[in-house]
Every structure is written in C-alpha cells, then in structure tokens.
C-alpha cells in the first residue's frame, strides 16, 4: 500500500537524483532546493495553514484584492487570482475555504515579478476564497470573497 506521502517523498528523491545527474534544467534545481510543503497542503483551516507555514495570522486589508467570479459555471475550473498595491511582497497564497484541503497554491515572487498572479482552481462547492500576501517586512494580509459554484447542464 503506497500512501500519498510515500509518493511525494519518492518524487522528491527522484527530483534530487535527476538534478544530481544533471538531467533537470537549472530552473528545476532551484525548486528542488525548496521542498514541496506537504504539511501545508494538508491543512483544513486558515489557522492550521498559517501554523504549518510558521506565519502570523493574516489581517484583512483593502490593499490586496482577490480576483474570482461571483458565479462559476463549473467548479472544475474557477479563475482565481490576487493583486496588491503593497510593496515588498515575497509570497502570495490562494485558498479555497471549503475544499478538502484549504491551500491551492503558493507563489514566491522575485523582485522582477509584479504582485499580481492569476491561475485557475477546482472548487467542490460554493465557498469563500482567500488571497494572502506576505511581505519582506513581515506583514501578512488577506482579502476574501465568495464564489458561488452552480450546477450546470443536464446534470446527468
């Protein structure tokens, strides 16, 4: 019986081997240096997530916006993004409150990237979505909005 954690650890080892063998490109080497934070991706609440990441609790702020539709025609693909007017943002997190695991994605921003990111996530049901921004000077801020997921088509 292979557990998910085993698979992940194996993946990490494979990546390390590939890097050692010079098979992985340079960009992937940088990633391999920062391991995939399995514990953070298994949390069910904002509080547990912040604990897993060793971060302070986030404070709601108008300086950050979470971008998503009011209604999603299909939960399989829901556009989700974050943008902020803050400076010195090093990290942006995208969360879906009612998903089996709350964390969808972490973005580590270099100085050359604007703090504005869009991707698409899966949502099992209508839920609040969050964008959390972490700055170099230790601020942790968030914005939230509700996305309604509708049943569509003939439903069969």
């Amino acid at each position: 019986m292979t557990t998910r954690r085993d698979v992940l650890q194996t993946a990490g080892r494979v990546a390390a081997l590939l890097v050692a063998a010079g098979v992985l490109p340079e960009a992937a080497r940088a990633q391999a240096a920062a391991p995939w934070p399995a514990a953070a991706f298994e949390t069910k609440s904002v509080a547990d997530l912040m604990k897993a990441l060793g971060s302070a609790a986030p404070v709601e702020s108008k300086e950050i916006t979470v971008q998503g539709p009011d209604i999603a025609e299909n939960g399989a693909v829901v556009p989700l993004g974050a943008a902020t007017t803050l400076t010195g943002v090093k990290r942006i997190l995208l969360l879906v409150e009612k998903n089996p695991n709350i964390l969808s994605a972490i973005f580590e921003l270099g100085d050359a990237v604007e703090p504005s990111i869009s991707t698409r996530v899966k949502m099992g049901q209508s839920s609040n979505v969050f964008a959390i921004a972490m700055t170099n000077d230790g601020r942790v801020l968030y914005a939230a909005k509700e996305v309604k997921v509708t049943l569509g088509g003939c439903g069969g």
Partner: protein
Amino acid sequence: MADPMRIRAQSSGSGATVRVLMAHEMETGLRKDAAGKTIPAWFIQQVSASLNGKPVLSAQWGPSVAKNPFLQFNIKGAKAGDKVAITWLDNKGDTRTDEATVS
C-alpha cells in the same frame, strides 16, 4: 513524455505579461474510477519561471489547481526578444521545460 506548454509573453508597458498553459491531468487523488478504485494523485507540485536564465518566480501547487493549468504573471523590465522559460515538476517526478520569446 508530457505534451509541450503554450507560453505567450507579450510586452506591455514597462514589462511583459506571461500566460502559460500546461498540459497536465492534475488528478486530486480523491476521485474514484468506474470500478470504485481511487485514482492516485498526479499533479504539478512545483513551477518556476526565469527571464533570460534568471529565476523570477517559483510556485508550489496542490492538487486543487485545475486540470491543464493556466498561469498568468507580469515581469517588470522584460522587453521584446527576452527569453522566458517555464519549468514544472509533478509528484511522479515528471518534468517539462518550455521557452518563449517576449514579443
């Protein structure tokens, strides 16, 4: 071998907007097949972007990122002719790198 990504990098204002589509199942590990057997998780965990070889962005993803993932971001100071490279790595150790030129 994974199918290639589609990367569009367009200069806009003082930088470039990068839009990426990646061909990947992004299987959550929570679904069951017709026979009731759990379909194992299979998803991109790490993504990184570089501009002319210098890392500018990295990301860690969970299985709730949508199938055939889309990613959009803006690189400050990028100009036409610059090279943007994207690499992803999934939980099975499969990886793919593709490159585009800013237009």
